């Protein structure tokens, strides 16, 4: 060895020394990570990676994608799982190839993660395109020493499915919220016609625990307009077969239902593709409209009935008045007065929508041309009693006759005269009202019974009126039957 060295020139020796010093410096400064040792037979290479091989072995054992990067961000190693995830052959993945999968925004996020992961644990969500598919990955980087090299290990977890599942859950939640928020009752049935979903409005018209039942079991409907030939299940069958049903009116017959009439529409339920998954049935509450229609129909019938009654009454009044009056003028005056009495009561009834008319109102209307109830000449007591329309008409005519008589011959014929109208009895079947005149001229009973008296005594049906021509003033007790 000595001879070999001595044979070298100074320049060569200097070069060898420089190389030896350079080797030592490189070792000291960590620029090399392998050494060649000459053994007895051959050279052997020893790496200074320390656990270098073990980290690769460990990474390969991981299910998630994992990669090691040095402090410059260069890829040192990528495991099989990551190569599979990114659809590239094992061993071919490089940092530039990985970067190329990312758009500029995700590149920046990835580079930032890699830089920070050299110092501390860091996570970020990255979106990249593998083939034609968008993938979302959760990257977690941690500082790691690969022998003498500082770097970072990054795991790649594919969260695309998790995100898709979350999106599906959100979509389901949204669909349920829409269903719940709908004002109309909405019922969803599967292909077999069993109820799978329904909202709160639908719960109110369905039988108890409708989910799982057939549509017809869940909600009892009748179809009067279809002559009852149709059934609830027919609607579901049609809609599931792809034939929408629109605006069919039905009566709800579920005993517990709060509504009575609905308008039904049904449409096929197509979730994805073209196959029908079932149907969606919506039921709009028609109860109020139907009730209004029924009320209107009732009123029309009632009006018809009343018009006929009134005409009959007018004809009777005309005939009777004609029989009792001697001249055309007298007839005209009496007849007009009686028709006006009828009209006054009708006006009252009309204003009160034919409901809740009180005896006091009828009296006031008939007395109105001659005296008001507040004038002091008329004393009323206990007349705040409702009477039905038919009775009000009769009572109006009776008050008209009494008033006309009082104006002609009784208490209203002189300024000092007064009339008291009081309820004097209130039995279970009838109540009695007394018309009593005071301070009028002395009364003498009429020679003959006029139509007025006849009307008074006959017009109250099962009730009746008792007329007494007392000298101090006319007294009439009117019995009003309670309906």
């Amino acid at each position: 060895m000595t001879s070999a060295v001595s044979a070298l020139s100074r320049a060569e020796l200097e070069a060898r020394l420089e190389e030896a010093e350079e080797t030592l410096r490189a070792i000291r400064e960590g620029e090399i990570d392998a050494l060649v040792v000459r053994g007895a037979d051959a050279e052997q290479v020893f790496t200074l990676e320390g656990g270098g091989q073990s980290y690769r072995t460990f990474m390969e054992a991981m299910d998630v994608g994992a990669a090691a990067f040095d402090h410059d961000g260069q890829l040192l190693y990528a495991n099989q799982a990551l190569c599979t995830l990114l659809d590239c052959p094992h061993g071919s993945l490089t940092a530039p190839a990985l970067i190329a999968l990312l758009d500029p925004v995700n590149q920046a996020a990835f580079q930032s993660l890699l830089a920070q992961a050299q110092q501390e644990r860091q996570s970020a969500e990255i979106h990249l395109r593998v083939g034609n598919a968008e993938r979302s990955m959760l990257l977690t980087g941690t500082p790691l020493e690969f022998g003498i090299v500082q770097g970072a290990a990054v795991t790649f977890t594919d969260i695309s499915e998790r995100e898709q599942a979350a999106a599906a859950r959100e979509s389901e939640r949204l669909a349920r919220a829409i269903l719940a928020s709908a004002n109309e009752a909405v019922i969803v049935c599967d292909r077999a016609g069993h109820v799978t979903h329904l909202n709160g409005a639908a719960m109110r018209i369905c039988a108890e625990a409708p989910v799982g039942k057939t549509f017809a079991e869940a909600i009892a409907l009748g179809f009067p307009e279809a002559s009852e030939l149709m059934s609830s299940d027919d609607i579901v069958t049609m809609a599931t077969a792809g034939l929408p049903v629109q605006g069919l009116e039905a009566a709800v017959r579920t005993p517990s239902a709060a509504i009575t009439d609905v308008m039904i529409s049904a449409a096929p339920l197509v979730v994805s593709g073209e196959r029908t998954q079932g149907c969606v049935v919506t039921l709009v509450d028609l109860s109020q409209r139907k009730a209004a229609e029924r009320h209107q129909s009732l009123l029309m019938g009632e009006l018809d009935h009343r018009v006929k009654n009134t005409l009959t009454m007018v004809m009777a009044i005309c005939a009777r008045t004609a029989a009792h009056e001697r001249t055309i003028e007298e007839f005209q005056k009496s007849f007009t007065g009686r028709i006006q009495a009828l009209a006054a009561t009708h006006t009252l009834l009309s204003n009160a929508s034919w409901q809740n008319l009180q005896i006091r109102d009828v009296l006031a209307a008939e007395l109105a041309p001659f005296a008001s109830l507040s004038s002091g000449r008329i004393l009323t007591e206990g007349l705040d009693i409702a009477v039905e329309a038919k009775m009000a008409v009769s009572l109006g005519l009776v008050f008209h006759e009494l008033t006309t008589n009082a104006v002609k011959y009784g208490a209203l014929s002189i300024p000092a005269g007064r009339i008291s109208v009081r309820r004097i009895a209130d039995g279970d079947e009838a109540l009695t009202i007394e018309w009593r005149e005071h301070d009028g001229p002395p009364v003498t009973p009429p020679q003959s019974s006029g139509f007025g008296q006849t009307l008074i005594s006959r017009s109250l049906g099962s009730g009746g009126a008792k007329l007494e021509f007392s000298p101090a003033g006319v007294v009439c007790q009117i019995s009003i039957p309670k309906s």
Partner: protein
Amino acid sequence: MADPIKLVLYVAGETPKSLAAIRNLEKICAEHLAGKYRVEVIDLKKSPQLAREHGIVAIPTLVKELPVPIRKIIGDLSDTPKVLVHLAVEESSS
């Protein structure tokens, strides 16, 4: 036209420094020696006996074989100016 610079890079499989040296040499060649070099990479993990030809001790090591004199640059070649000096390649000559 001058003879190309012949370089031999000795690495040990895929150790971090070997990978860094390959990367750095690719960059230097592309940026400073365009069209004027020939590189041979020798993996001593696979063929350790090839270390004997240039008396390689530390890995990675780059050997400039041509033009003579032979020069060795030990380390991952991250210090570009130092590498260029050792290769006797001036910026202006590139």
